[in-house]
């Protein structure tokens, strides 16, 4: 039983519905069939009683004159002619005397004259007893328990003086064909009803079950992953199920937002840790490096060294300077004490990068929204914009397009740079602002790292994303209060 109840709603709802429909149809059909059987039996009883009454009256003179042959002809008449309106034919007609011996019968071989009814079989013994007990005035139907025959008995009497009893015997089988024809009609109607109701029930059951099943499947995924959206067309109504759908959608939206937030936090934590690490390392490297460079200077100025040694020292000096530059590049420090950003600073950046863009024959779309000075240090902002633009120019396809927009929105400076180059994958986006980016084909891959560090130090934020078929970087930096 438990297994059955564990079955999916997808099957359970239509099955329960079908079961109820079938049970109802069966119950209605059975009661109609029972009614039909009773009707047919009632018809038989009524027509048999009429026949019994007529025969009893006709038989009276024959019995009074002991005219066996005439009586035989009379009882045989109804068996020979079966009228179409009463197709039920008697199996046997008997005339019994008062001792319940056969006076005459339609089948003398099976029911010979003068044989005692009670001697034939236990069933007939019971019938004989019943006839003896009955004070018969009118034809009556006798149905014996377990018997496969129906008996209609009628008195043959002359003004109360009973001469004998007429017995008309019907096999119950004879009413079966009529019963079956009635039952068949009922059965066909039942099947038609089922043929209409079952598909409707199945359809509605599926309508109910499929959304529930989908919902259940997704709810099960909770905890392991954020499940997919539900197709709102699956159930577009405002009942309890519909409300459940809406609640699910709301929950899903909140879950996604939470997940995105967590990812963002993880990413910035990582970048901050990298920044601290880089600063520490730069400090540890810069100290000995400064010493080494001073030593080389001293060696070059004061020591008496041969040309070969000098060459080697110069090589070491260049290497050490490169290390110093690299370390300096990764150790970004926005120098806050600087003059304020002016619209001209933005135009200067345009002048600086334009030759690069021109080299690739790019369409350079420039929109400078700044109209007045902004309370932000000019140098770091210029650095950010130059880095973003150089990246964009490098990433843009040949004869492609690069857009640059700068404006003040509310209390924020917004720098937006877009290019039509190859779009970045989700993994690439994940590690976009990390130092020594593998995306960088030339240079040390520190451009975006530097940008990120500066933006962070200025209290702003930067995001990369797809804008249609373009990659777009947007940096937002809060404008300080008169800082």
């Amino acid at each position, binding site marked *: 039983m438990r297994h059955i109840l564990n079955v999916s709603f997808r099957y359970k709802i239509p099955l329960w519905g079908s079961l109820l429909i079938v049970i109802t149809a069966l119950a209605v059909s059975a009661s109609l069939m029972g009614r039909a059987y009773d009707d047919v039996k009632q018809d038989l009883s009524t027509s048999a009683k009429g026949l019994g009454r007529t025969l009893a009256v006709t038989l009276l003179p024959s019995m009074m004159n002991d005219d066996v042959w005439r009586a*035989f002809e009379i009882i045989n008449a109804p068996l020979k002619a079966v009228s179409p309106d009463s197709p039920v034919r008697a199996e046997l007609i008997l005339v019994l005397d008062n001792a319940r011996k056969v006076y005459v019968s339609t089948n*003398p*071989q099976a029911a*010979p004259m*003068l044989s005692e009814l009670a001697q034939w079989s236990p069933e007939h013994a019971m019938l004989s007893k019943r006839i003896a007990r009955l004070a018969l005035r009118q034809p009556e139907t006798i149905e014996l328990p377990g018997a496969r025959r129906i008996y209609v008995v009628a008195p043959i009497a002359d003004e109360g003086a009973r001469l004998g009893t007429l017995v008309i015997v019907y096999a119950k089988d004879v009413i079966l064909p009529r019963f079956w024809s009635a039952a068949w009609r009922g059965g066909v109607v039942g099947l038609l009803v089922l043929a209409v109701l079952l598909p409707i029930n199945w359809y509605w059951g599926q309508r109910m079950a499929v959304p529930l099943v989908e919902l259940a499947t997704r709810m099960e995924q909770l905890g392991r992953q954020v499940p997919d959206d539900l197709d709102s067309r699956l159930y577009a109504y405002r009942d309890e199920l519909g409300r459940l759908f809406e609640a699910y959608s709301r929950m899903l939206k909140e879950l996604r937002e939470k997940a995105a937030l967590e990812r963002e936090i993880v990413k910035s934590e990582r970048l901050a840790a990298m920044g601290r690490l880089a600063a520490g390392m730069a400090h540890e490297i810069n100290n000995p490096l400064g010493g080494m460079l001073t030593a080389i200077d001293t060696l070059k100025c004061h020591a008496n060294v041969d040309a070969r040694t000098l060459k080697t020292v110069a090589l070491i000096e260049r290497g050490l300077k490169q290390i110093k530059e690299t370390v300096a590049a990764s150790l970004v420090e926005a120098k806050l004490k600087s003059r304020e950003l002016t619209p001209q600073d933005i135009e200067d950046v345009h002048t600086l990068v334009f030759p690069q863009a021109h080299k690739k024959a790019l369409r350079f779309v420039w929109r400078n929204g700044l109209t007045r000075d902004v309370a932000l240090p000019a140098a770091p902002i210029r650095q950010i914009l130059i880095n973003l633009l150089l990246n964009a120019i490098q990433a843009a396809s040949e004869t492609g397009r690069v857009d640059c927009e700068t404006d003040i929105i509310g209390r924020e400076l917004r720098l937006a740079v877009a290019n039509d180059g190859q779009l970045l994958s989700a993994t690439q986006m994940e590690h976009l602002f990390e130092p020594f980016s593998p995306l960088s084909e030339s240079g040390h891959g520190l451009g975006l790292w530097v940008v990120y560090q500066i933006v962070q130090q200025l209290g702003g934020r930067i995001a990369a994303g797809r804008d249609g078929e373009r990659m777009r970087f947007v940096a937002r930096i809060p404008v300080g209060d008169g800082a």
Partner: protein
Amino acid sequence: MRDLTLPIRNRRLLRSLIWGAVLLMTAWMSAAAYGGEPPPFRIGLTTTSLQHAPGLLTEWQRYMERKLKRRVVFVQRDSYRETMDLLRLNSLDFAWICDYPYVYLQPLVRLLAVPVYHGRPYNRAYLIVPTTDAGATSILQLRGRVFAYADPYSTTGYLSPRYELRQAKEDPAHFFRKTFFTWSHRRVVEAVASGLAQGGSVDSYVWDSLELTQPELTARTRIVARSAEYGFPPFVAHRAVPAEDRALMQRVLFDMALDPEGEQLLKRLNLDGFTLGEPKLYDSVSRMMEIVDR
């Protein structure tokens, strides 16, 4: 109920009146048609094979009317007794009756003609049982059975088996468990064939004729014993019939075998013709009557 019975009675009365009027009209019209001609010959019939061939009877009647140049009315009754009563009442001119009634009514009738059957003016009684009874070989083995007689005034269908029992020193009244009359030889065959009676006595002429026309009926019976020959049921004339009418009727019957139409009718009657019989043909029946009635 009273309200209903009254109109029904009225209707019945009306119907009887109409029928009476129609009959009177017919009688008057026939009398007018035949002018002053003598009244029709009334012929009584008991020999029962004709009862079941109404078409044959009508043709025989027309044949006779043409030959006799006089109208003929066949009068059929259900039992021999009723035909005998009609003869006694002088309501019949001629009759084809069984030997027993002939012997019984001898003072009242004259022998006119005797049918010839299989070349001889004789018939017999057949003792028959259902074919399901394979054992019986004589009437004495039917003790305690149900037995069917044809008619209490039939030689072959009543007198003969009782005579046999008498000869065997049995009491015919108690020999059988139950007896009944079927009022015709043909129905004796039916009663035995259906199993209603376990034995029966039937005229050989009727059984043989039935075997020709309804072999499926006779096939369900078996002839156990054949009796001695008796004179064939004769055609008789009432003693009141004038000699010339008697001679005319006799001639017509004798001449039936001579013309094709008559021959055809005889063939359908399963007879060879008619011959002048003698009353002593029926002496054996008379003796049997004496013995049985004793």
